[in-house]
């Protein structure tokens, strides 16, 4: 197993190196002179040459890539053009909000997707199965930016039900200041027993989280259905059935351990996908996370910020993949002992 995990880690490091090079290349595709972007819109032309020197743009490509690697490793991810702050500190400011949103969305998605998948698998081919399958395909077919707009229209404009902007009401935050333990408003207000803020942040979280949940809910429902049907059809499950165990025992004691593994893996991967989906949703809900940051960076062609966000999420994705592989290796004796 150690060898397997070591191989996985080596591969992951290789992939990360490739990811860094790819983001470097993306930054260089920008038409026009990167120095113009760096120097900012109001810089006089005389500044460009100096900026070019400072950024090392006058040196050979290989040197630039090495410099870029060095920067990525030492935490110098460049300075954002539109915020004038170091990209890494921008990202760490924005990450908790996105994390909160995506975690809440995954919670919704699991709460809906898992039971739906199980019901669907329980009656394959029946009406309820078809309905749930259409529902789950609906989830993965939803243009979520549109869903976000429609939800705003319905829940705020028409029903006056839920707030649609920001993470909490700033007036409540003035009256009941929130101590930032994790940067996630709901968890922080729970930790500090700040009930007005809890209410405010929860109510602000609901709509964006529901929208982000559409895709993972669909994927999870489909995955649960597929895995459960797969597992229950396995010979070894028939074997324990044939030995006279009750269905409940068969499922809980024998099949579960296999069925959860792919589902858990898909949840881990869907996490990274949902982070990307926040690009489309956060700015609509004025949610100050990575998605809003990315959307603003794209709008102002803020190359360091764009590559920073891309790199961060790719790293999260590679890391999630690695974790899934390692955990499965630990749980699965075929790999553990092989």
């Amino acid at each position, binding site marked *: 197993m150690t060898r397997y995990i070591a191989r996985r880690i080596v591969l992951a490091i290789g992939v990360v190196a490739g990811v860094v090079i790819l983001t470097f290349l993306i930054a260089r595709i*920008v*038409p*026009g002179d990167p120095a*113009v*972007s760096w120097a*900012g*819109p*109001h810089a*006089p*032309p005389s500044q460009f040459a100096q900026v070019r020197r400072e950024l090392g743009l006058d040196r050979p490509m290989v040197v630039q890539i090495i410099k870029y690697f060095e920067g990525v490793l030492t935490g110098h991810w460049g300075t954002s*053009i*539109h*915020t*004038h*702050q170091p990209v890494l500190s921008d990202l760490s*400011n*924005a990450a908790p909000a996105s994390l909160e949103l995506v975690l809440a969305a995954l*919670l*919704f998605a699991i*709460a*809906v997707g*898992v*039971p739906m998948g*199980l019901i669907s698998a*329980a*009656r394959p081919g*029946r009406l309820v199965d078809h309905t749930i399958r259409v529902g789950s395909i609906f989830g993965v077919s939803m243009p979520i930016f549109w869903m976000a707009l429609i939800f705003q229209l319905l829940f*705020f*404009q028409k029903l006056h*039900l*839920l*707030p*649609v*902007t*920001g993470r909490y*009401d*700033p*007036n*409540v*935050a003035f009256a009941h200041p929130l101590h930032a333990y994790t940067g996630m408003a709901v968890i922080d207000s729970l930790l500090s027993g700040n009930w007005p803020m809890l*209410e*405010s942040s*929860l*109510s602000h*979280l*609901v709509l964006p989280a529901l929208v982000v949940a559409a895709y993972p809910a669909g994927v999870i429902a489909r995955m649960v259905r597929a895995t459960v049907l797969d597992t229950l059809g396995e010979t070894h499950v028939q074997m324990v059935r044939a030995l006279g165990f009750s*269905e*409940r025992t*068969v*499922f*809980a004691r024998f099949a579960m351990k296999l069925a959860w593994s792919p589902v858990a893996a898909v949840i881990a991967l869907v996490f990274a996908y949902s982070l990307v989906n926040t690009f489309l949703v956060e*700015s*609509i*809900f*004025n949610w*100050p996370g990575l998605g809003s*940051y990315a959307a603003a960076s794209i*709008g*102002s*062609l803020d190359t360091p910020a764009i590559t920073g966000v891309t790199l961060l999420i790719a790293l999260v994705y590679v890391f999630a993949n690695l974790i899934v592989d390692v955990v499965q290796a630990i749980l699965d004796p075929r790999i553990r002992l092989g």
Partner: protein
Amino acid sequence: MEDVMIARYRGFLAIGLLIAAGVAVAVLLAGCGGSSAGPVSTTFTYDTYTNVMVGWDPSTENSNSIIALANVYDTLTKYNDETKEVEPLLATSWTTSPDALTWTFQLRPNVYFHTGRLMTAKAVKAAIERTIRLNQGAAYIWAAVKSIDTPSQDTVVFHLKYPGPLSIVASAGYGAYIFDTKASGSESLAKWFEAAHDAGTGPYTVQTWNSGQETELVLTSFPKYWGGWSGAHYKRIVFRVVKQDTTAAQLVGSGQVDFVQRISPALFASLKTNPQLQTLSVPQLMNLIAPLNCKSGPLADLTMRKAIAYAIDYKGIIAASKGAASPSIGIVPPGLWGHSDTLPTYSYDTAKAAQLLNSVGYGPGKKAMNLTLTYTQGDSSEQLVTSIMKSNLAKLNVNLRVQPLAWPTQWAKAQSTNLSDRQDIFMMYWWPDYADPYAWLGGLLATEKTPYWNLSYFSNPQFDEMAGRLEGVAATDMPQAIDLCRQMQIIAYEQMPVMVLYNVTGQFVALKSVGNLHVNPAYAYVVFVYDLEPLPS
């Protein structure tokens, strides 16, 4: 067999449904909570669509940040958009020599910086000299200044290299702030500012700044403000960043913000009927312009430029802009000296445009022409205009290739040394640093060796000569300056280097409880909050 299957999953179903039920309860609980509203508010919440603070240095800041800085810093003078006169602010009076080369300002006594120090003539001199020395942002407004004297504690004397309207320059929204240069002690002042410190004399001072957060900036009243705090004033200003204007509309509609900086015409129209709100349409000292490439490509031909000018449905564009735009006459917008309603102007005339195009072998029934237009990506108003322009030109067998580009790319392309890389039509907003037509007539149209802001690449010796005289004449003989402006605008009409699509009308929405609301177009989108009066809602 279903029963079996259901039984098999009952436990898991139960867990799943439990989670689902829990979430649903949380949703309902959360949804029921409403937000609380107060009586007479002492907090003014300003809703903006983009980050408030880009930089904090009063010498160099040259962006949207002035919506906050103008409430923190004072200038020597202030432009009154109603009288079109410059009024006292930190300077109580001023005089100029007949040749407009020497300007003497009397300072207001007993004015304190937020750092606690007294504002003196030496401090004013130091502040302006720092701005000139750093030479960033809008520092060029002081370009005429040769030296500054401080004959007494409350007298500042400027000596100029060439005549200029220094009292107007001193009222500029950018680069004219007076601040305490000793604020940082031995530390670097630039670094000190960067850490969100301020050293102004204005009514408000920085309380908290959270970069990137929705509630980005909070300003609070400065107790020793020279204007005093008797009477009704807002004691705190909150700047809230809301990127979507639909969201902003919801916030102001529900009383959560007091003022919205930018909102779409459609939303503006829909909020007009709301009894809780006041709406304000303010013609801005700003227009949407389209410099035409006079140097290379098809539009280097004057006939083509005129044809294009006749081809555009200006009224249609203004109609589709639903109140955010008004027709323009001449290149200088109304509200500034030098503007005239009697200048010749182009109007939508397809027949004339076709005839002009035909005369050079293009147009309907002849060769097709391809033109490139660049505009700033993400600007929906510009996009709307380009859609209509494209449609107008298509009728004349002119194919307009519209390229939305991020500003740095758009600008770099326009400045490209390879002439064939440049666009045929550029599109941008244009506004002055201080209330003066020079920004248009000089900044936009005077010859530039390497293009910087003259993106029509227009070059006309007669025009350049007039532009060179304009500021001096304005400082000494206003009627003559106005006449000069007129002549220059007639040249611009004849040569057609820049199409003016419309003048921008600012559409602002505020709560009815905000009294004395006024938005001075000379200071783009600044609300001078001290001048407002909070009313009971």
